[in-house]
């Protein structure tokens, strides 16, 4: 069953074609990796999916409903939200309140608080629930982003580099979490520069280059695709060695 169907999405910023004719569809319950060099358009694409950026053309269907032109809050209510790569927490609020606020999309305050504690527990941050979000370290804040997005009760969850700057143990925890979210029936799109992590957890990988979809296949297919290796993997593999 297709949960997300993207057809011919394009978006220009002045002279820059940030996205051009991106088309693919995702069946429910897949973990899809989205990779590509810096500036390839990954974040722009996520922002387009959640309604922060309006595409110049193309269509996006979430679980059968067209979401192009809808406001982000409407798309969140329909079941798709994202984390922010540059971290956009409510810095003056506690970690718990950050996540609780997302829970209000589907619950009253008391239930949202319980849900928020569950989400924080899942990302391993229950112990800092009462700290101010602005006082956390960068990797911790990225995990609060994840907990907050999760607390909206999404069908499709877009994770934009939540593993940046994590140590190997923490990274393993987040990878386990992503798998358990998939087991809960959530479909995930994951942007990550860390190749080993992405190759391990993803069922499928999309490669974006200069806003254009370069490849779409299993991790093995993509890793052995000469075009992809040329455009991205070759360089990035070296960078990660």
């Amino acid at each position, binding site marked *: 069953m297709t949960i997300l169907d993207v057809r011919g999405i394009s978006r220009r910023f002045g002279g820059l074609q940030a996205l051009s004719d991106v088309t693919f569809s995702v069946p429910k319950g897949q973990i899809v990796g989205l990779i590509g060099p810096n500036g390839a358009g990954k974040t722009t694409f996520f922002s387009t999916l959640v*309604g922060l950026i309006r595409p110049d053309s193309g269509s996006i269907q979430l679980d059968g409903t067209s979401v192009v032109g809808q406001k982000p*809050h409407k798309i969140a209510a329909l079941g798709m*939200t994202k984390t*922010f790569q540059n971290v956009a*927490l409510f810095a003056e*609020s506690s970690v718990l309140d950050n996540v609780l606020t997302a829970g209000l*999309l589907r619950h009253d*305050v008391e239930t949202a608080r319980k849900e928020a504690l569950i989400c924080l527990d899942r990302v391993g941050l229950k112990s800092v629930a009462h700290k101010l979000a602005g006082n956390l370290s960068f990797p911790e804040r990225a995990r609060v982003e994840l907990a907050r997005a999760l607390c*909206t009760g999404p069908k499709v969850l877009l994770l934009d580099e939540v593993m940046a700057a994590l140590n190997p143990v923490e990274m393993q925890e987040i990878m386990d979490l992503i798998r358990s979210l998939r087991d809960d029936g959530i479909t995930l799109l994951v942007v990550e520069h860390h190749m080993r992590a992405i190759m391990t957890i993803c069922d499928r990988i999309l490669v974006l280059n200069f806003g254009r979809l370069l490849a779409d296949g299993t991790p093995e297919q993509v890793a052995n695709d000469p075009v992809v290796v040329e455009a991205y993997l070759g360089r990035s593999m070296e960078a990660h060695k």
Partner: protein
Amino acid sequence: MKRWIAILAVIAIAAVLPLLLSPTGYWIRVLTFTLLFAAMAQVWNIIGGLANQTSLGHAAFFGIGAYTSTILVLKFGISPWIGMFAGGFLGGIAALIIAVPTMRLQGHYFALATLAFGEVMRVIANVWTSLTGGPVGLSVPFVPPSIAAYSFKQLLPHAYIALIALIIVTVIFEAIRRSAMGYRLRAIKENPAAAEVIGIDTTKVKLQTAVISGVLMAMLGTLYAQVAVFFDPDTVFSAASISIRVALIAILGGVGTAIGPILGALFIIPVEELMNDLFSSGAAGLSQLIFGVILIAVILWRPRGFITVFDSLMARFSNKARS
């Protein structure tokens, strides 16, 4: 528990205080206006503090309330109690009309747009003579004293009505702050894009806030009209003595907190009166000058408002109680 005892004690003191003042005297008047301005600042605090949108146009709603109830009583003999709700309704509509175009504006631009709106309302009230009486102003007609007619021989009932109004708007403020809406407003204030992406209808929440604040401000306009008995457009639609003053009271007291506007009004209104009293015989403008200097000193001393003095006193008090 302790908190409730403290709150009840403060209300009890506030309830007894008017009885101690001479019923025909000067200070009961100061007290009434202090309570009324505290309530107005609290209502401003809903949009200014919770939504972080610094409105400098709240006189618009205040004036609409004062004029609506007074015109209704003058032309149709309708009790100001009912007129108060009619004014609240119109104040809400006015708030919606100004909120729709200004909502996307931030910071200074929002402040300037609302300031301009207040001024436009003042000009309209001055020009629309057939309805408002124009620059001459309106007098609330004398009717035999009764609660139903909102008419009293003395100021004492007005002081109590202002006190009750202050309690009601403070409860509303605190209820909003703790509710889902309060969480949503904090999210919008801190990161509007993230707020939308996690499902908050930022437009709707901002409009709701503006309308609640506008309705309540207009209702307080009726309270003012009944105490003042006479007013003109330049008084109730005043940028300086209504719009900016209520913002100032809330900011000086501690913006975004329930206690802030009350502390701010308890300071500003009596001190302003005192300065007028002490220095009115001096050179013209001397009292305002001294008042201004005091304000600057206070803002430099406590940039985050009196609430910080209050907080440290409370901390010291509870430390003593423990040891």
